[in-house]
């Protein structure tokens, strides 16, 4: 009985959780003048989407976000793989100290250092550039820890065997460790991509131009541009446009995403 009730409650929670998305989706297709009224009608329009697409360069924003997300992910994978291998398999001087230094980055993420990092970027003359948005995230302690855990579970014999076949160090890393850690890479990729797709404060501060502005900043600027009063239907349409691609990708691959995450993350 109790199980039944909690089961129903948890289903109810799932429905409740879906509500904001459905509400926004519904509003985005409502004619502008009906957006604020609760009365039910079957009016349906694409006008809001057309208007939004027209009013702000969202295509450019998409491209920017895409480049930034991919750029960060690539760099992170390279730096994290190398570092994780060192931490997992090598004994060297200063290991513990370095490990703690890496730990610090998890507790004090770059997001908190917006002001000092702005100064660093200014000194490097990289304000309002895509590389500037990416740079502070090129090293990911989280990625290093995740991969280190996985690398540790890979038996030393495999490395030995590869070495016998004449593989050099880099080849061992590339042929043995990387393929075996695939689920971890996927999990990390998911975290990293959603993180940087989401990222807002930092690009808000350092970008000025349309050429470098990512989607989130574009969306915020768009939503805030209404001195004349909130345009709910249009803002909802813009919001849906921003979240749709990632949502679609997630729905298509949700099983793989979640499973690979379950089998690698949080161990």
């Amino acid at each position, binding site marked *: 009985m109790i199980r039944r009730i*909690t089961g129903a409650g*948890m*289903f109810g*929670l*799932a429905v409740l*959780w879906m509500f*904001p*998305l459905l*509400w*926004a989706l519904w509003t985005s297709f409502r004619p502008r003048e009906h957006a604020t*009224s609760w009365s039910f009608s079957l009016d349906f329009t694409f006008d809001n989407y057309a208007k939004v697409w027209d009013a702000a360069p969202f295509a450019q924003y998409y491209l920017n976000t895409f480049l930034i997300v991919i750029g960060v992910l690539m760099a992170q994978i390279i*730096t994290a793989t*190398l*570092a994780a291998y*060192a931490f997992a398999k*090598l004994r060297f001087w200063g290991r513990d100290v370095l490990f703690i*230094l890496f*730990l*610090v*980055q*998890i*507790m*004090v993420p*770059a*997001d*908190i*250092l*917006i*002001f*000092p990092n*702005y100064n*660093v970027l200014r000194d490097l003359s990289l304000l309002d550039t895509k590389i500037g948005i990416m*740079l*502070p995230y090129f*090293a990911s*302690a989280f990625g290093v820890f995740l991969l280190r855990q996985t690398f540790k579970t890979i038996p030393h014999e495999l490395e030995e065997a590869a070495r016998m076949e004449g593989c050099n*160090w880099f080849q061992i890393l590339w042929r043995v460790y990387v393929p075996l850690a695939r689920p971890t890479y996927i999990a990390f990729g998911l975290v990293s991509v*959603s993180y940087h797709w989401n990222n*807002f404060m930092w690009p*808000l501060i350092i970008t000025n131009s349309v050429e470098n502005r990512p989607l*989130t900043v574009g969306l*915020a600027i768009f939503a*805030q541009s209404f001195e004349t009063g909130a345009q709910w239907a249009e*803002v*909802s349409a*813009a*919001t849906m446009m*921003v*979240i749709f691609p990632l*949502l679609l990708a*997630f729905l298509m691959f*949700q099983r793989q995403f*979640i499973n690979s*995450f*379950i*089998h*690698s*993350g*949080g*161990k």
Partner: protein
Amino acid sequence: MEAQRAKWKVNMYAWLLLLPSLIFLLLFTFYPVLQTIILSFHQADLGSPEPFFNGVDNYKLMLEDDVFWKVLSNNIWFALGTVPTSTALALGMALFANKVLRGKGFVRTAYFYPTIVPMIAVANIWLFIYTPEYGALSHVMEWFGKGDMNWLGDQTYVMWAMIFMVIWKEAGYFMIFYLAGLQNISQELYESAAMEGASSWTVFRRVTFPLLMPTTMFVSIIAFTNSFKLVDHLVIMTKGGPDNASNLLLYYIYETAFSFWDQGMASALTIVMVVLLLAVAAIQFFSLDKKIHYN
């Protein structure tokens, strides 16, 4: 001699492997913190074009600043409101999503999808939900015959509104970590518990919960850090108002640094934030870590 050289080599490789990460870590974490410490002892604002050393004046002013104390206590309430609740809810979600037979995909998706919705988009959606007169919540309250509420325009409610929204956004993300943790608990434990006829509550208390402790640790650290770094929604929803009732430390830093250009003060505030986060980390690390095995 040979051994010495081999050791040397390993050392060198290790450091070379770590170098790329280290460069960025130094450039964007440690160097900025160092610079910030120095700048926090300087007066550098609109009234003083050339920064000059002013000792601990910034810190003194900070301690006298009502807004600082308000955002700090707000942030603590915000953490208290979001960390335990979203962690507990995530555990509940994971237990359910792990067992449920019908609609597993739907349940998981429904719980998880807020994670991949950018906070800015979340803020847009929830702003419309909380808006009086025609927001979703105001319609719902109308159904129940309750009066309208100005959720974001009232000093007490605004924080609750924010906390609820953030729980909605985060719980599904943490659920995934718990789902992962649950996979690692061996089925045999459950079987033997069933043999002994233990109630499901006992099983949870004696087996599941203790074995999920490392996950709980991990999740609560992330949740705690998030409660300090998640401020995007304030830009859209309230700008920290009314009268700083929803303002958080990082947003105050943002205002101080980029609206008021009081760089010395922004630095001092940043240092407070860093120290706070490190202190909490140290407490967690030393007090709890002994009980939990990581590797």
